[in-house]
């Protein structure tokens, strides 16, 4: 597929491929998204704003220039400690695959990144991948990141990205390292149209990690563990939707990962968690019925996740059609709404909760929280 080279979130020419549960494929303009959603559907999006996670600086022991890309965190509120991928000299104009490695990194090494100083806490299981800890107060770290960081850049784009290019319209908590780009499809008019049609919109916050490191060994480990938070109102809406047999439509792979992690033992509860699972062809989806996603190429962790929704033959047919019709791929590309064909047979089972059982569950939960 052709990469989208312009950082335009909502191109008037954006396409939407709709893959029905029966395998039928429709091709529409993306503005028709609301038309293909049903009254009563619950659309859940990731409202994480994207941090300027690329920091240029130097490795103090050797004086070598480095670029640090923050790539993961353990909690949404963490300000000091991050998993990071370190590159040697150069910038985004060089494909990550061709970037030189950093100087040898050792625990305790100081690195200077703009106004910030950090130390390497640990080298993880790869010479580019480290745990770093910023020094100083949280306020100074927020300021240093906000002022000297740049959004992680992509060599396939013609122009460097500014923060406003990578924030979705609904961006709120600044916790992601790369944009939850399926959400680029959303704007406020679309949300108003959803509301008018009786489609419920809800959000969660999921700290989307780095999508690609340019290193095959590291990429095979993606996605890293990602913390998420599900607000109470969203948990309520999901519970209600599932009881009523309504569809849960996830905007992006991060939402699938968060909801399936939170719902792995049954109901989706409000609160924070860390999504550490991989989603692939053998994953049984418990919560999500359909995903709005960018187009993804076989072999990526995003494509693997799509295999949980439908069979490989359908995905191959989808890829062929998208190619033939000139769909654009990557962050600023076109979209696909993929209905789960695997979910259908389970839908009945999960709504088959008797009223007595329901009130018993509620009572138990209320006891737990009081």
């Amino acid at each position, binding site marked *: 597929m052709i990469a989208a080279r312009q950082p335009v979130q909502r191109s008037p020419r954006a396409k939407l491929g709709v893959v029905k549960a029966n395998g039928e494929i429709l091709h529409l303009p993306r503005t028709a998204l609301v038309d293909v959603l049903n009254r009563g559907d619950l659309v859940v999006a990731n*409202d994480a*704003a994207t*941090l*300027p996670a690329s920091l240029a600086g130097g490795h103090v022991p050797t004086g070598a220039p480095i670029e640090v890309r923050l790539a993961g965190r353990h909690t949404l*509120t963490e*300000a000091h400690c991050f998993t990071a991928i370190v590159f040697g000299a150069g910038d985004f104009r060089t494909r990550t695959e061709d970037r030189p490695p950093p100087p040898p990194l050792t625990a305790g090494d100081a690195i200077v990144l703009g106004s910030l100083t950090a130390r390497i806490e640990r080298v993880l299981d790869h010479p580019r991948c480290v745990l770093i800890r910023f020094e100083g107060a*949280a*306020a100074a770290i*927020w*300021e240093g*990141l*906000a*002022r000297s960081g740049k959004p992680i850049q992509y060599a396939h784009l013609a122009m460097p990205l*500014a*923060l*406003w290019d990578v*924030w*979705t*319209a*609904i*961006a*709120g*908590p*600044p916790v992601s390292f790369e944009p939850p780009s399926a959400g680029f499809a959303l704007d*406020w008019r679309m*949300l*108003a149209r959803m*509301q008018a049609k009786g489609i419920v919109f*809800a*959000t969660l916050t999921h700290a989307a990690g780095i999508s690609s490191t340019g290193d095959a060994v590291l990429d095979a480990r993606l996605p890293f563990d990602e913390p998420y938070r599900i*607000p*109470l*109102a*969203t*948990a*309520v*809406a999901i*519970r*209600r939707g599932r009881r009523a047999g309504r569809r849960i439509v996830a905007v992006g792979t991060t939402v699938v990962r968060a909801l399936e992690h*939170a719902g792995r033992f049954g*109901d*989706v*509860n*409000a*609160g*924070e*968690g*860390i999504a550490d699972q991989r989603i692939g062809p053998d994953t049984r989806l418990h919560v999500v019925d359909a995903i709005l996603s960018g187009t993804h190429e076989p072999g990526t962790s995003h494509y693997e996740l799509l295999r949980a929704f439908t069979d490989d033959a359908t995905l191959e047919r989808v890829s062929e059609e998208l190619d033939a019709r000139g769909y654009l791929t990557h962050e600023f590309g076109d979209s696909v709404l993929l209905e789960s064909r695997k979910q259908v047979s389970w839908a009945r089972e999960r709504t088959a909760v008797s009223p007595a059982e329901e009130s018993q*569950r*509620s009572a138990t*939960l*209320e006891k*737990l*929280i009081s």
Partner: protein
Amino acid sequence: MNALHSNAEWKPAPRIAVTGGTSGLGLALVREFRHRGANVAFVARDRARVERVAQDTGAAGIVGNIARKEDIHPLAIQIAGRLGGLDVLVNNASSLGPVPLKLLADTECEDLELALETNLLGPFRLTKALLGSLAAAAREGRSAVVVNISSDAARNPYPTWGAYGASKAALEHMTRIWDEELAAEGVRFVAVDPGDMDTPLHALAVPDADPATLKRPELSAREIAELVESGQRSPRRKPDTSTIAAAEPSSQ
């Protein structure tokens, strides 16, 4: 100061951001909101003054210039990041345009641009960058509101107040349109005329005014805080609570 008592009234404590928070009405607002137990962040240009006010009030001080496009997202990151979300945004930072004030015909284009950048584009950009946080707060049943500080110069054609008056008139009208458009999202927008106050901005505009005839900014701050507080008691978007108890967090 009785922050504990106030906290009990505002539960959970609202997260409030004020621009232009180191002098005049902005400083009075930071103090008033802190006094009422809110979590407050404020923005201003001068680092030394930001640090002093942060130390005095316990509010999160953030250095930046809302009239600069490049500062907006870094400010939004620090506001949303340090407060953990946002319920109330007060766009208070203002520019008079030319100082001393001039007839419009004598006003340099650059002075008009500065007034528009500070009084109109800055609030627009910052609101847009923080709208995701405000709408998320509304979806969670919290009261989300944007307060835009205006002036009677927005309505009355006072000679020599052209750059300021025109920019504030545009801000007021933008406030009304935001309010219409985002009603369904549950985010309120309100423009407030705090009156002629004894502030550094007023002293620049009218150097020979008798301070005794001017309103104390602390009084205006109290009125605005009361407006915000009454909004906190009645969110525009009611959360659907009938099954909320069943979805309270358990350990993940």
